[in-house]
C-alpha cells in the first residue's frame, strides 16, 4: 500500500499504514453480527425480521421495506381504493397503476371527471358479453372455436385462449409496458387487468406480470426506491424534505437516497456522479454510450437512434415524446422551431455555445489526466482501506472479541468500545475517500480554499491513523497475554477517547466541506460559531497537541472536551486552551 498524502505527516502516515494492512490476515465469516451503530449509518444484517423495521437513526426519515411489506402496502392501497370507489379490485389496481400509485391523485381525477378517467385507463362502464352462439371466430388466428374456449375483456371481443396466451406472452416479454395492456382489437381500448392475466397466461408470464406490478409500485412511486445493492430485495420508503439523504438498508448497504450511489457525505451528488462516470471501469462502454446515445429527457434511460425520424417516442411506460436534436419536448416543436427535421432550437443553442461547453470540458479532462490519477489513486486507496477495515471489524466481532473477553476476564458487553472504534474507522475511511473527489473538483484558482482543504484533509488523515493504530496494534498486545487490570482500563480510556475525538473531528470536517469551506471564502466571518468551529479544530488539533500526548497520563476522566474544537483540556481549565471557548 503506497500512500503519498501531501501533508506534513505524510511519512508518519505511510509507515503506519504499512503496518496496519500488510500483516493482518483477514478472516471473513459468513455470519455478520454487526452492531447497529445508528448514528453512523452502519446497520446489522438481521434481515430475517419480516416486520417493517423503523431504523433507529439520528433522523428517522425512512423505512426499509421487504417484499412482504411492499405487497401488503400495495394490497392495502388497492383494497381501500376499491372500497372508496366501490369498484372491483382489478379496476382499482389499474387506476392506481395509471396514476403512479398515488391514491390522492386517483381520488382527485376520478371525482373530477370519472368519464375521462375511465376512457384514459380503459375501464368500460359495463361488461359486454361475447355473442351468445355456439361457435365464434377468433380475431387473431381467424379460426372458429367453441364459445367455451374463447375469452374476452369487458368489451366482449372474442379471442381464443391460445391466442390470448401468445398476446399476453408477447406483451410480458416486452417489459413493464404489459401493465397497460389493452384488448387486441385495434379499435378497442378496454384494459386487460391482472384477473385476465391470471386466467389466461402461462405460469411464467403470470409471475413476471406480478413481479412487474410489484416493481411498478416501488419504481413509479416518488417516495420509494429499491436498494441499489446487487441482489438486495429491500426497498426504502423515504420522507422527503427531512434531513440528510443518507439511508442505510437492512442489507447493510448505505446509500444516498437522492442519487442512489453509495453514501457520500460531504460530497454533493453531482460531484459523485461526475466522479463515478470518470472512474467507470467500463470507460470504453461509457464512451460508446456517450457517443451513440442520448438519455431520454424524462426517464433518463439511454436511447440509441438507429432509424427513423427525429420525433422520438420513449418505450413504455415512459412514452415521452421529444426531439432527438435538442431533446426538447415534441409538443414545443412546430413551424417556429424551423421545421421538424432541422431543429432551430438546437442550431441556435449550438451557436450560443451551449453544447460546446460539454465538448470543452471533455478536452480539458484529457489534459488533466495526471491530476486526476493523483486523486483517483488516493480515493481508491481509501476505498480499499475501508474494505479491509470492514473485514477486520468482522474478524473482531466473530473471533477476537470472544478471545479478548476470556483473556482479560471481561464480559463482551464491556468490550463494545473496540467495535465502536472500528466502526468509526470504517466511517472515517468513507468520508476521507470522498474528500479526494471533493478535492479533485475544488477549483484550482481558489488557492486559499485549496490550502485550507488540504490542511484539513491531512489532519483528518493523521487523526484517523492514530485511531486505527490504537484499535489495531495496541489491541494486539491485550489479545496475546494477560495484563494488569489497570493497564487494560487505561487502554479502554485511550481508545474510547480517540474514537470520540476522531468522530468529532470528522463530523466537523463533513460540516465544513458541506458548507463549501466558507471560512476561507471572500466573506469570511470568524465569529460565526458554525463556520469557525471547523477552522478551530483544524488549526489547533494538530498531532502534537492532540489527545495522543495525553496517553502519558493515561486518564481521560480528568479531561473535558471542548464543544467547539474537541480539544481535551485538563479539568482545571474553565476555558479551552486552544480556542478559548468557555466550558459548559
Amino acid at each position: 500500500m503506497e500512500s503519498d498524502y501531501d501533508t506534513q505527516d505524510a511519512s508518519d502516515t505511510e509507515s503506519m499504514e504499512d503496518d496496519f494492512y500488510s500483516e493482518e490476515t483477514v478472516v471473513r465469516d459468513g455470519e455478520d453480527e454487526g452492531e447497529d451503530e445508528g448514528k453512523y449509518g452502519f446497520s446489522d444484517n438481521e434481515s430475517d425480521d419480516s416486520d417493517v423495521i423503523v431504523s433507529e437513526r439520528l433522523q428517522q426519515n425512512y423505512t426499509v421495506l421487504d417484499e412482504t411489506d411492499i405487497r401488503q402496502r400495495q394490497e392495502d392501497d388497492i383494497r381501500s381504493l376499491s372500497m372508496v370507489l366501490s369498484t372491483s379490485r382489478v379496476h382499482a389496481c389499474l387506476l392506481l397503476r395509471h396514476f403512479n400509485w398515488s391514491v390522492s391523485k386517483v381520488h382527485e381525477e376520478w371525482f373530477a371527471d370519472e368519464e375521462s378517467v375511465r376512457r384514459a385507463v380503459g375501464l368500460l362502464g359495463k361488461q359486454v358479453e361475447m355473442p351468445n352462439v355456439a361457435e365464434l371466430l377468433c380475431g387473431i388466428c381467424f379460426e372458429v372455436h367453441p364459445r367455451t374456449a374463447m375469452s374476452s375483456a369487458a368489451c366482449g371481443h372474442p379471442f381464443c385462449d391460445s391466442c390470448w396466451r401468445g398476446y399476453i406472452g408477447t406483451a410480458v416479454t416486452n417489459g413493464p409496458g404489459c401493465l397497460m395492456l389493452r384488448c387486441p382489437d385495434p379499435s378497442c381500448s378496454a384494459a386487460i387487468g391482472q384477473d385476465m392475466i391470471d386466467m389466461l397466461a402461462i405460469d411464467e408470464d403470470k409471475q413476471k406480470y406480478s413481479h412487474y406490478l410489484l416493481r411498478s409500485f416501488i419504481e413509479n412511486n416518488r417516495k420509494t426506491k429499491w436498494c441499489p445493492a446487487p441482489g438486495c430485495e429491500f426497498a426504502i420508503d423515504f420522507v422527503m424534505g427531512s434531513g440528510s439523504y443518507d439511508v442505510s438498508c437492512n442489507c447493510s448497504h448505505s446509500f444516498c437516497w437522492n442519487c442512489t450511489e453509495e453514501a457520500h457525505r460531504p460530497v454533493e451528488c453531482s460531484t459523485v456522479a461526475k466522479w463515478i462516470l470518470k472512474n467507470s471501469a467500463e470507460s470504453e462502454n461509457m464512451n460508446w454510450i456517450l457517443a451513440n446515445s442520448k438519455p431520454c429527457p424524462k426517464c433518463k434511460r439511454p436511447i440509441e437512434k438507429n432509424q427513423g425520424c427525429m420525433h422520438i417516442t420513449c418505450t413504455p411506460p415512459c412514452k415521452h415524446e421529444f426531439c432527438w436534436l435538442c431533446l426538447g419536448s415534441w409538443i414545443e416543436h412546430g413551424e417556429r422551431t424551423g421545421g421538424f427535421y432541422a431543429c432551430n432550437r438546437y442550431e441556435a443553442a449550438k451557436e450560443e455555445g451551449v453544447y460546446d461547453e460539454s465538448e470543452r470540458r471533455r478536452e480539458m479532462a484529457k489534459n488533466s489526466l495526471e491530476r486526476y490519477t493523483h486523486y483517483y489513486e488516493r480515493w481508491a486507496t481509501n476505498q480499499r482501506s475501508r474494505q479491509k477495515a470492514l473485514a477486520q471489524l468482522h474478524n473482531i466481532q466473530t473471533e477476537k472479541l470472544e478471545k479478548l473477553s476470556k483473556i482479560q476476564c471481561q464480559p463482551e458487553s464491556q468490550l463494545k468500545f473496540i467495535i465502536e472504534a472500528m466502526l468509526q474507522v470504517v466511517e472515517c475511511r468513507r468520508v476521507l475517500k470522498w474528500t479526494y473527489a471533493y478535492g479533485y473538483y475544488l477549483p484550482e484558482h481558489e488557492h486559499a480554499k485549496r490550502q485550507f482543504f488540504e490542511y484539513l484533509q491531512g489532519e483528518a488523515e493523521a487523526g484517523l491513523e492514530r485511531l486505527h493504530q490504537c484499535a489495531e496494534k495496541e489491541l494486539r498486545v491485550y489479545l496475546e497475554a494477560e495484563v494488569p487490570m489497570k493497564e487494560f482500563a487505561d487502554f479502554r480510556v485511550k481508545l474510547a477517547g480517540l474514537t470520540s475525538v476522531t468522530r468529532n473531528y470528522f463530523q466537523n470536517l463533513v460540516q465544513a466541506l458541506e458548507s463549501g469551506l466558507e471560512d476561507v471564502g471572500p466573506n469570511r466571518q470568524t465569529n460565526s460559531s458554525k463556520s469557525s468551529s471547523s477552522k478551530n479544530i483544524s488549526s489547533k488539533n494538530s498531532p502534537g497537541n492532540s489527545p495522543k500526548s495525553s496517553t502519558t497520563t493515561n486518564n481521560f476522566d480528568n479531561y473535558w472536551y471542548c464543544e467547539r474544537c474537541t480539544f481535551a483540556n485538563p479539568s482545571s481549565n474553565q476555558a479551552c486552551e486552544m480556542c478559548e471557548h468557555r466550558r459548559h
Partner: protein
Amino acid sequence: MQASRARLFKEYKEVQREKSVDPDIQLVCDDSNIFKWTALIKGPSETPYEGGVFQLAFAIPEQYPLLPPQVRFLTKIFHPNVHFKTGEICLDILKNAWSPAWTLQSVCRAIIALMAHPEPDSPLNCDSGNLLRSGDIRGYQSMARMYTRLAAMPKKG
C-alpha cells in the same frame, strides 16, 4: 411457427377470395416461402401518386401475428414518411401500435391511407417533409408526381 403458418394460410385463402373486392391491392405470396409476400398497390386518386403502381415487400416474423410484419417500398417513392433510399415506412401500426387483429390486407390499406395523408410531422424523408410543412404543396406534388412517373408507371413506347 405453426400458428403463424396457419394464420398466413387463412389470409392467403381470404386474399384469393377477396381479389375482386379491393381492386387497389394485389397481395401475392412467394411460391416457396409463406413468410415472404409482395403487394402491388395503386396510388390513390387525387394524389400525386395517382396512376402509379407501387410494389411493397413483406418480411413476416415467425411470431406473426403477435409481432408486426416488416414492410418496405420496393418502388421508389417521394413521400415524407418513406425513406427515399431504403423504402422503410414510418407508420405507427407497423411499430408500437401493432395489434394482432390487423392483417396484411389491412396493412396495405393503412399504407394507401398514409400515401393520401402524409404525416409531415414525423418525417423519414426530410426534403419531402420540409416542402409540405413550409406550405409548398405544389413543390411537393410535382416532385412526388415526377418520381411516380419515373418509377411507378410503365415506360411508354
